[in-house]
């Protein structure tokens, strides 16, 4: 393997890692948004009852 090939492979590997990281971040954001949406919708459905808790 000559120098040019090694440089290209290293560049490709760096690019691959960068894309994998971006995909992971996107999935994390999507899951975070889903959690927030479920929480917000639950509060909306409960309405005033959310604060009406027996002691």
């Amino acid at each position, binding site marked *: 393997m000559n120098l040019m090939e090694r440089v290209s492979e290293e560049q*490709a590997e760096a*690019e691959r890692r960068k*894309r994998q990281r*971006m995909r992971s971040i996107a999935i994390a954001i999507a899951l975070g948004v*889903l959690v927030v*949406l479920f929480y917000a919708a639950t509060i*909306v459905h409960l309405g005033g009852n959310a604060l009406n808790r027996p002691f």
Partner: protein
Amino acid sequence: MGVETQVDGAVLSTGPGVEDFVALMKPRVMSLVVFTALVGMVAAPGNLHPVLAFIALLAIAVGAGASGALNMWYDADIDRHMARTAARPIPRGLVTENEALTFGAVLAVTSVLTLGVLVNWVAGALLALTIAFYIFVYTMWLKRRTPQNIVIGGAAGAFPPMIGWAAVTGGVSLESIVLFLIIFMWTPPHFWALALYRCRDYERVGVPMLPVVAGLQETRRQIVIYSLLLVPLAVTPSFVGLGGLVYGATSVMLGAIFLWLAYKVYRTREGRESDRAAKRLFVFSIFYLFALFAVLLGEQLATKLTGFASFGAAVGS
């Protein structure tokens, strides 16, 4: 976009980027789906909490994106050979078929469950029906078998305003069916205008679009027939309590232009002029649908925000 590095003939794939998955969701189709769903939601009687309305629109958008991804997964073999679709992520080798299938399936299930659990199950069921119809009925069954593919398959694109309506009301009613029918009737002339000048693409991959099977002239005739059905139908919201005078006037005016362009397609049969006439109708048809729903949205918002009923007052109500 996923990048491929060439090293002495060997291709080093860098894997798909986030933007490649976004492209799988057909963002332009998604935007029209979200827009028509929004109109259905705003036009529906009753109120939906803004948070739930936002969730409903997001779920509908994601459901539409799932349909797009699953469609690209199934049609990858023919997309490679058509100029219009050759640049999609799978034909370009940026996303594998398995990745697209998994992505689409996860989004489909998530969007339906989210809409069903958080908003209501009528809307959730309609979204599930829309995705299933688009994938199983249109993409897998009709598209490669019959020239009626986009006539029946067009139902999938017509459901979003009904889903939006159901998100608010929890049901289906005459008004939401009218919105459905407008998009349903709009789809054939819209896609056949495209198919007229992309005829060779469809022929090459064996998709029996009407121009391939029945010929260009029959397609032009069918475009005129469906346009004649569409234009009066598009005026009906003014008579069922959905649209007011502004909508009625806009619908009549744009309908007249639609019919004129359809007639031009019918009359212009030779050379580049015929392609140009078909392209003009195709482009105008997009504007036509967008404008009708935009006016409907404007009227409904004006009525709801000001309480001044004559904006959105139905001629017949």
